[in-house]
Every structure is written in structure tokens, then in C-alpha cells.
């Protein structure tokens, strides 16, 4: 198991954002966290990344407990909803960032960093854009820079928060197919958050449905559609209206 989450809970003030959530994501799988807004899916993702600390529960990466580790120690690749690219750095420097901030003892030499960044630029098909700044890119291009930047640190797991949320419908569809292909090539264990069921069901190997901080159902897309676990899942998926 690449990611294992056990009985995770998180409150903000009186609001219980995540309650007693347990998930397992097998190595090499692409899993979607699906739910309406406010269901706690982004909080759950941030708990896994170490951007929030849980009130209770544990997080494991590849069997190693990381619950009390800081975000910078977890080596979890994270793609932010609005990309959070460093505006003052070029595309190249954005991608190189994670390698350059390593302590001197583990930091690769300059030449190697350059090579790896170029490899990643090739992977996300942005070789020609190395010297551009984020403000000079389209939304889809920024999304791919954000992905390359997260991959540069050779993450143990990849976490994506509404990866296509800020894009228009057409680019969204293209990127969605691209992400699936990309995942099939790299087989990096990935967990992504979405509120769009079509997206979740089309792209993911497995879907986790959340509501009010509680996990409602976990399963393969076809299974969930065939056998919704409860009334919420049934309603949320709008199964009545499907042929």
C-alpha cells in the first residue's frame, strides 16, 4: 500500500472537516476523492500532504508513518488547485526549485538538475517554454508546469487538488485524457480531488466518495454506479436520471 490513512479526524473550530476517515491507495493506482463542496475532500488531501495536522489518526506512506512529519519531510508531490506557481521564477526555476532547496549533501550537481528539468519539460511537452514566466502561460500550460514541479522531487505519492478545476471545458477534457495516459506511463501512486463525478469516473481506477467529512463509499467506478452504498451516493450521482 502506497498511501494508508487510518481513522483521520480534523476539526476547524467547531466544524468537523474530516471525521474518522480511512483509505488505502494501492501502489501505482489513480484514485479520485469525490464529493460536493465542503465535504472535506481538500482537507483530507492536505492532511495527507502534511499541510494540516490531524487531531487524531495516522498517515502512512509505503508503510512508514509520516503523521508527525512536516510537509517538507514527506516528499509528497502536491499540485495545487490554482497551481501556486512561483510568479517570480521562470518555468525552469519553478521545476528546479525542489532540487535546489535540498541540503547540500543530497542536492544533485547543477548539470544534473538541468538535465532532470529538461526531461520533465519534455514529459509535460513544454520544452520551448523553459524561460517563460508563469504569467506568460495559458491555464493548461501552468497546470503542466505545476505537475512537472511536483514530479521533480521524485515524490513517493502524487496528490492533486481539483487539478482541472480552474480550466475551461475543452482544455479540461484534453488534460483529463492526458493525465490518464500520463499515469499509465509513470504508474506513480496518485490521489486527486474533484467535485466532478464525470471526471472521477472517467479517469480514476477507484473512487472515494465523501460527504460532511465522512467517507460514504469506496470502490471501482463501475461498482459504485451499480451498487451505491447509501441514499447520499445514490442522489449525489444522480443515478435516477441516468439511462
Amino acid at each position, binding site marked *: 500500500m502506497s498511501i494508508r490513512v487510518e481513522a483521520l479526524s480534523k476539526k476547524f473550530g467547531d466544524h468537523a472537516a474530516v471525521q474518522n476517515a480511512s483509505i488505502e491507495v494501492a501502489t501505482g493506482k489513480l484514485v479520485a476523492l469525490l464529493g460536493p463542496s465542503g465535504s472535506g475532500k481538500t482537507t483530507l488531501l492536505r492532511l495527507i*500532504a*502534511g*499541510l494540516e495536522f490531524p487531531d487524531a489518526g495516522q498517515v502512512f506512506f509505503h508503510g512508514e508513518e509520516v503523521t508527525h512529519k*512536516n*510537509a*517538507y*519531510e*514527506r*516528499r*509528497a*508531490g*502536491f499540485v*495545487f488547485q*490554482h497551481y*501556486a*506557481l*512561483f*510568479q*517570480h*521564477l521562470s518555468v525552469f526555476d519553478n521545476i528546479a*526549485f*525542489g532540487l535546489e*532547496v*535540498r541540503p547540500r549533501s543530497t542536492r544533485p550537481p547543477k548539470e544534473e538538475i538541468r538535465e532532470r528539468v529538461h526531461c520533465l519539460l519534455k514529459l509535460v511537452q513544454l520544452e520551448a517554454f523553459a524561460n517563460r*514566466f*508563469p*504569467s506568460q502561460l*495559458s*491555464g493548461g500550460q*501552468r497546470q503542466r508546469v505545476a505537475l512537472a*514541479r*511536483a514530479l*521533480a*522531487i521524485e515524490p513517493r505519492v502524487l496528490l492533486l487538488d481539483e487539478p482541472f478545476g*480552474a*480550466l*475551461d471545458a475543452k*482544455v479540461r477534457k484534453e488534460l483529463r485524457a492526458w493525465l490518464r495516459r500520463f499515469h499509465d506511463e509513470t504508474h506513480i501512486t496518485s490521489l486527486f480531488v474533484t467535485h466532478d463525478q464525470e471526471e472521477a469516473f472517467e479517469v480514476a481506477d477507484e473512487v472515494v466518495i465523501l460527504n460532511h467529512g465522512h467517507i460514504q463509499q469506496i470502490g471501482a467506478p463501475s461498482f459504485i454506479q451499480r451498487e451505491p452504498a447509501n441514499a447520499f451516493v445514490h442522489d449525489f450521482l444522480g443515478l435516477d436520471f441516468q439511462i
Partner: protein
Amino acid sequence: MVERPADEHYALIFMAGAIQDLTTARQSARPRRATEEGPLARWTLILLSVGFFSAFLLLPLVAVFAEGLRRGAALYFKTFTDPMVLSAIKLTLLTAAIAVPANTLFGVAAAWAITRFEFRGKQFLSTLIDLPLWVSPVIAGLLYVLLFGSQGVLGPWLQAHHWRIIYATPGIVIATVFVTFPFVARGLIPLMQAQGVAEEEAALTLGARGWQVFQRVTLPKIKWGLLYGVILANARAMGEFGAVSVVSGHISGLTNTVPLQIEILYNEYAFAAAFALASLLSLLALVTLGVKSYVEWRARQQSEQSQISPL
């Protein structure tokens, strides 16, 4: 700024059009937009504000230079060879050189704590930071006299150790620190609040730690706002009069800053010299405003750049 038709040449065309408006206002049938005032109202308002501005703001500035140069350039420049004036300039520079960096450090730390974390007493801390903007400079000076002065709370103890704070350089520095500490923090807090923490969080997930996050991600984002605060703090530090006047003791050549030296020269009826020295501070003020406008322009560019819509 709302640039209506946002063309630089527009000003000229506009002028020409407006003058035509004025001359042919009666007969002219040029339809005017629903959200525009008539030319008469428009030009009355412009003339009123330009007139007020010239009489109340520009004229005093012009007067400083005119009075300074009244007795000729030779006397003007001779002012700056007077040892008392030179020692005042030195003290002012020294004061700013201590107060401004100290307040920069404080401003960055306070802005970081206030914009990045939730804690009890946050509102209180932010109100405290604004305080010097509210308090009379004389009160600022008074505070330290009551604390460190010979009859002050700590006075006897300081005297026993032969430490002088009031009527000496340390007092001047502390009073200056007091009146200038809001500027850097005030410049940074709204900026850092608006920028949010997404980029800092991204840096964390990429393995950056404490100082690296600040130095590589935050600092480049806030540098214009920081510079803005620093130049305003510096202008105030070099020009502060009330607070420093109370704690200085006015010992010529020892505890006089430039503004205090101006007062002394003025009270000794050395008007030309007083205004010559005042013109130096006026130049500093103009440079400050110039840098400030430039920084505002850069900051606007930076924020526009990062706000281009994702598509």
C-alpha cells in the same frame, strides 16, 4: 486607476476637446456621456483642486527653496560647512541607520506572525502597531522622558549606573524607533494577506524549510512592499521633529538632529541657513515621493501580472 479611454494621447485630445467645449459650450450639440459632467462643472472642479493644491501644498515647497537661496548660492552652500550642521546631519544619519533596520526587522516579523498564523491577541498586536500613527509625537517623546528621565521611573537606577538615555543619542534613537515602527509592518500586512500562503505551501511540499521558504518564495513577492515601507520609515526617521525634540535636550553639536538644527537656526534668525538646511530635507521628501510612486507602479505591475486570468 480607472483609465477611461486609456490612451496617453487621450489627455491632449481631451484638452483640445475640452477647450472647444468651453468656447462653444452654448451652441455645441456634442452629446455627452451619461456619466460625464458638463465641461463647465468639470473645469471648475479641476481649477478648484489645482488652485487649492498649488496654494496649500506647492507654494510652501517653493518657499523653502526660494528662502534658502535668497541670500545667494554662496551662503546657501556655506550652510553645509558649518560644523554644527554637519554634526546634525551625522546624528540624523546615525539615527536612521539604527531605527530603520530595526523597524524593518520588526515589520517583517510582525507581518509574518499576523498574516500567517492564528493566535490569541492578534487584534491587539495589530492595534498596537498602529498606535504611533494616532499618538501625538510629543506624547511619544514624553513617554520616554517619563521612563528614562532624571525623575522618570527608571531615572534613579540609570543615574546610579551612569547611563544617559534622555538628552543623549540613545533617547533620540528610541523615540525615532517609536514613531517609525508602523510603516514597514503596515506596508506588508495587507500585501501578505492578499497574496495568501499557496506559494509558501507549495515550497514546503517541495522540501523547502523555514528560512528557505521566506528567502526564496516570500521575499521576492514582498520586496516592493518592503521597500515602500522602508522608504517611508526612513523619511519619517530623518524628518521627525516633535518626539525627538522632547528627548533631545537641544545640545548643539551633540544631540541635535537636522530638524532640530533647523529650529535652532530659525530661532537665531539665521533664516537663510535654516531654509538651506530645510531644502535638504525637502529634497529628501521629493526623492521619497518619487521612489514611492515608482514602487507603487512596480507593485501594481507585479500584481497585474500575477492576476492574469488562467486562460
